[in-house]
């Protein structure tokens, strides 16, 4: 009876769609009811309204678009009457979700992505699995998304004000963004981060790539031991490395100041860049080693056979082929340095203050939404950076005919 059949796509209205709609309504109604202080009433009203809606949509409104827009409009008006503009927005969202759910159930859409021979249990598991995946994405993304609207807060607190919830323009402001781009407390760390991270990345990419290539040669003695040592900055707890680096680089800095006569400020940058490069090297080594596994050694021998020296072979043959690994290693190194707060707190002095450092002290001393504005800018920046690199990588693969599609 539960074996799917292409000729009977529509499930039973009273035995399937309506009970499930009622359950969905129960959940939503409970949430809305609790928010308004009457969970029980919300529970019952939600179930009744959802079941009734399912019946009406499934029986009388075959056109999906009309049904969904109509539901959203009715829900919006109800929300507007209950809680103003924010209620209307919530109403539209709930209306769209509930009506989509009603059609998804009543038209048999929920089976559309599984083979016709799947049992009821298979279908249930398939959709539960999708739900779990969705919840995991929500779990990963929600904390990041929450800060975005808060960064437009007109007040100086991490709080959704009543004006914000009512979508009153008065409750929103760009002042935290203005503060970020105009206040020297923030522009200086921004500048420092953009000085330190690229330099550290260049150093770790050059050294890390060389190390990975060397370590991939089978004749190097003690390869595993060397590899373990080079990877260790990633494994040793950061606070331990930071303490060690503090004392090591203090001595190094004193030596440079005393014997080379460099300025304290310049030495400070050198110390932080070197420390961050050390942290970035393991990422480069790991990604480049992984790409080298797929690298065909006979190509270098062929190049040598054609009369190219090792340096020329490296740049003309090997480098282009392992470039994706080098780039993603470089990205990791860049982000490591750009996000790093522990080591720079130890090794740097106030004139090398980076963005994460400023955000850290900002959170501790003054809970200011400027931090959220910075976070929003950085999230946007990271997304753009990763998208660009991914697009470039696909393009180069397509050009070289490596992509399977």
């Amino acid at each position, binding site marked *: 009876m539960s074996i799917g059949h292409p000729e009977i796509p529509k499930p039973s209205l009273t035995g399937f769609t309506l009970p499930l709609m009622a359950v969905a309504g129960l959940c939503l109604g409970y949430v809305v009811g609790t928010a308004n202080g009457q969970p029980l009433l919300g529970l019952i009203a939600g179930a009744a309204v959802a079941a009734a809606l399912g019946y009406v949509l499934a029986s009388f409104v075959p056109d999906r678009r009309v049904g969904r827009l109509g539901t959203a409009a009715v829900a919006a008006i109800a929300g507007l009457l209950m809680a103003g503009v924010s209620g209307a927005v919530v109403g539209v969202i709930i209306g769209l979700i509930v009506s989509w759910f009603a059609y998804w159930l009543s038209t048999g859409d929920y089976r559309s992505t599984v083979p016709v021979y799947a049992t009821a249990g298979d279908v249930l598991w398939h959709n539960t699995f999708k739900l779990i995946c969705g919840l995991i994405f929500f779990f990963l993304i929600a904390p990041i998304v929450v800060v975005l609207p808060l960064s437009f807060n007109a*007040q*100086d*607190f*991490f*709080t959704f004000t009543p004006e914000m919830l009512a979508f009153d323009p008065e409750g929103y402001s760009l002042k935290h963004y203005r503060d970020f781009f105009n206040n020297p*407390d923030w522009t200086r760390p921004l500048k420092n981060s953009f000085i330190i991270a690229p330099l550290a990345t260049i150093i770790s990419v050059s050294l890390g790539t060389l190390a990975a290539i060397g370590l991939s040669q089978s004749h190097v003695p003690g390869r595993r031991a060397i590899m373990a040592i080079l990877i260790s900055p990633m494994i040793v707890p950061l606070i331990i490395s930071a303490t060690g680096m*503090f*004392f090591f680089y*203090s*001595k190094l*800095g*004193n030596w440079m100041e005393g014997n080379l006569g460099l300025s*304290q*400020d310049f030495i*400070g940058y050198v110390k932080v860049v070197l420390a961050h490069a050390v942290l970035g090297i393991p990422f480069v080594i790991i990604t480049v080693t992984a790409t080298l596994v797929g690298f065909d050694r006979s190509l270098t021998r062929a190049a040598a056979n054609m009369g190219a020296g090792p340096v020329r072979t490296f740049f003309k043959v090997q480098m282009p082929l392992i470039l994706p690994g080098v780039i993603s290693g470089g990205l990791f190194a860049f982000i490591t340095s750009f996000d790093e707060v522990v080591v720079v707190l130890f090794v740097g*002095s*106030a*004139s090398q*203050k980076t963005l994460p450092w400023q955000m850290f*002290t*900002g*959170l*501790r*001393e*003054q*809970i200011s939404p400027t931090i959220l504005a910075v976070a929003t800018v950085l999230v946007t920046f990271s997304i753009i950076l990763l998208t660009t690199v991914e697009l470039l990588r696909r393009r180069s693969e397509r050009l070289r005919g490596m992509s399977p599609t």
Partner: protein
Amino acid sequence: MKLTKTLLATSALVMSAGAASAIDLTFVSWGGAYQKSQLEAYAKPYMEAHPDVNIIWDESSAEAVAKLRAMNEAGNLTWDLVDVDAADSFRLCDEGLAMEYDPDELLAPADDGTSASEDFGAQIVNACYIPQIVYSTTFGYRTDLVGDTPPSNICDVFDLEAYPGKRSLEKRPINNMEWALLCDGVAKEDIYDVLATDEGQQQALAKLGTIKDQVIWWSAGADTPQLLADGEVVMGSTYNGRLFSAIAEQNQPIGMLWDAQVFSFDGWVIPTGLPEDRLAVVKDFLFFATDTQRLADQAKYISYGPARASSAPLVGQHADLGIDMAPHMPTDPANAQNVFYYNFEFWADYRDDIDAKFQAWLAG
């Protein structure tokens, strides 16, 4: 010939410019509104008068003791002037990490000629400490969450029936233990005698225990204003300047409970081991920054009382809002009817012991 002369002249010019070149000083402070008040009241005016001096701020005062120790061990001093709590200055001075100074030589006399040591008086709590301000740790409450009779007595904090809801208290025994004993019927003058005994400490913790499950513990001065703004707590302790900023500058529905506020001091210390040239600039800055007018100016930006007696009459209006600052000072007679003074000797002796008991009680 001419070319050589020009070259010589240019290089001489470059060298003299190099000699008088800009000096970067790193000052350590607390960040936030307090650091801003220091910047506006004296760092900016000083930099305008001395364009060759550039001041960089490091918001590390909270870890000043630990960081100065580490810098001293590594022989890598990167700080030139450090703003610390008076209590921390005792530790730094005892360990020789802060420099001792002569108040009458380093600091400016008052306008009427009163010597600096007399003008600051008892606020110079030890040989290294250069006083700036008096602040207090006190309570703020949500005016819309406390009903018709707002709290007016410190013991209202412990009264869950009259004022139900969460409170925020600092995650350390200092101040909390004193308030608890006071509200458990111990007379104000006996508090430190009682607190010196194990029974007294248990009594204070037991009193705190009556509200323990309604307490949110804070560790940064900005926490309580945030919790009050969210309405997550009905009342909470923090530094009075933070509450002033939330009330007057952010227009939050918050009221002040000044009863049994605890006075403490904040000031500069000079780290030991500064090179001569930097020390000279730091001393010059301190002479300027702690004079009568500059300390009075600081009160335009934050509601902390100036440490000099001669500055008090000069306290004016808020720099942006134009409101009189005097009624918002912890030292204002109306606010200072019932005041505790942070007892340095007591806490220096008992801090480690009571800290351990307090943390164990928190975890238990």
